[in-house]
């Protein structure tokens, strides 16, 4: 028997007012691209302070769209928050400019790392500290170099020639330069070797534990994410279909089947499963 987890977030009716301890909250968000394509439909997600929240789902589920909305760069792709709100420390922030969001402590490490390839590592970090004063930036740089000694060794090299793992470290380090309260990571494990992924996840854990940072983690690699996260949401075609503590999600049969790659006996065919899932969604 699969455990049925109720997902009030995906119901049409707005649910109860948020608990104040939530650092970031998406409330009944609907996002439309190009005036024509609905990418996110009525999604509500809460990120409590000091924890790691994982956003899981397959390609095209809308995870990155949510992050872009949070960072205020949706407009660069003709996307618009049609309804709903995003609040940060109980303040509406979804109409703020990206640099204002960074100043408030929200920063995102983009998918595919996106280091500035022609800039040196030092210059890349300098860009991360763009909103900071020179003295603040110097302090932050020390912290980052302490976290990633490798970056210090290669600080005068051009970022484009580094390996994928090093680039990911640089991307995270660059984001840390902004002195964030909330760090959002978009697919940090994408295209990296397992050993490197271990190293990255170690750092993420240290950020939470030692620096008390809140982390919003977007992953396709559900196994990794649920290992480290406190809470998780599963997105499918622009809606939240499941949410719960990381432990509960990891134990969920559907999640195991579709996201963790654990096979279960008794399932007849893919169609059965789909049908089942769809029914569950309507009922919940």
């Amino acid at each position, binding site marked *: 028997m699969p455990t049925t987890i109720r997902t009030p977030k995906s119901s049409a009716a707005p649910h109860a007012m948020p608990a104040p301890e939530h650092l970031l909250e998406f409330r009944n968000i609907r996002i*439309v691209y190009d*005036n*024509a*394509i*609905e990418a996110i439909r009525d999604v509500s997600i809460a990120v409590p302070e000091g924890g790691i929240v994982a956003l899981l789902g397959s390609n095209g589920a809308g995870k990155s769209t949510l992050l872009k909305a949070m960072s205020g760069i949706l407009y660069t792709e003709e996307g618009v928050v049609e309804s709903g709100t995003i609040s940060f420390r109980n303040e509406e922030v979804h109409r703020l400019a990206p640099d204002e969001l960074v100043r408030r402590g929200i920063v995102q490490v983009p998918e595919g790392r996106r280091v500035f390839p022609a800039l040196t590592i030092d210059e890349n970090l300098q860009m991360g500290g763009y909103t900071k004063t020179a003295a603040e930036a110097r302090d932050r740089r020390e912290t980052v170099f302490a976290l990633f000694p490798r970056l210090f060794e290669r600080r005068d090299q051009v970022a484009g020639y580094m390996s994928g793992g090093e680039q990911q470290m640089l991307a995270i380090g660059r984001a840390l330069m902004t002195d964030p309260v909330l760090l959002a990571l978009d697919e940090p494990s994408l295209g990296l070797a397992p050993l490197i992924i271990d190293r990255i996840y170690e750092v993420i854990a240290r950020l939470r534990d030692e620096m008390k940072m809140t982390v919003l983690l977007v992953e396709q690699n559900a196994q990794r994410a649920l290992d480290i996260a406190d809470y998780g949401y599963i997105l499918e075609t622009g809606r939240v279909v499941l949410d719960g503590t990381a432990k509960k999600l990891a134990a969920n049969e559907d999640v195991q089947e579709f996201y963790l790659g654990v096979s279960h006996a008794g399932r007849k065919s893919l169609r059965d499963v789909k049908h089942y899932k769809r029914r569950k969604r309507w009922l919940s």
Partner: protein
Amino acid sequence: MRTGDFKQTYGELVTLIDSPPIWLWSVVLVAALIVAPHVLNSYALSFLMIILITVVGALGLNILTGYTGLISLGHVGFLVTGAYAYAILVSKYQMHPLIGFLGAGVVPALASLVVGAPSLRLKGLYLAITTLAFSFIINTLILEARWLTNGARGISVQRPEIFGISFDGDAAFTYLCLGFAVLALFATLNIRRSRVGRAFVAIRDNDTAARVMGINLHAYKLFAFVTSAFITGLSGALYGIYLSFVSVEGFPFLLSIEALAILIVGGLGSALGAVLGTILIVLLPEATRMVFSLFSAQMDAMFTTGAQELKSMLYGLVIILFLRFQPRGLVGAWHDIRRMWVNWPLRY
């Protein structure tokens, strides 16, 4: 209930005209164009002629820039070569006008092989600058080759007579332009829906991927240049006949820019866009003139000698505002209207 276009076969997808209403409207439009020369005065008719001639050129550029994504800043070079080819063959060597038109297509097409060659290596604006350079070099060659082109003196061109039909009158000449415009439209529409046209678009959208898919980039890029130059050259010949006088002066560099403006204002990569863009850009000065004449008396009193420049400024302003509110061009506007119509009252 109608639920948008639903195509079941590939054939349906590539048919030129897929619905009876479009057939009907096309017929109405053609009929209107046939009647027009007999109803309009020669001033209004001159706009119709210019529109038809420009449509041919815009469609030519559309193949290169719209379909294949190769930006040309020197299309006036093909226009002027076409005009000179026609003028030299027909006015200087007394050849048959049809041979003249053939030459007006073939000569620029040959020239385009030379210009197209850099396109095999260059991209974007780097290619655009070589086409620009080409148009300047062509002008110099024409001016230098006095024995052939009369140099800066230019060549007078008569309206042609083909198979006993004289195209001397404005109405008759309009029909000739109409004929060429319709031919050019069908030609480009057919190219677009052919294998070649799909290859062009693939090159535009991602040439590396296109190459991986097995599209011979060199051959198709050159082919795009050749067809584009051929059609543009025909437009040049018609333009030369319209001007009755072919000279380098009559084909200023700004025509290249205007041609790009037509495509962008119309909607890049669409034959319909090229047509709509032409109509807008050709009529815009006239429209601004009309707006201007409403206030003309006061303005003349206010600014006297500088007043005329206001008209040009208005023209520039309209282009800016248009792109601000309709960046995808007239075709984009057209699709929005259609979508609103089909989906109403829903938004999507």
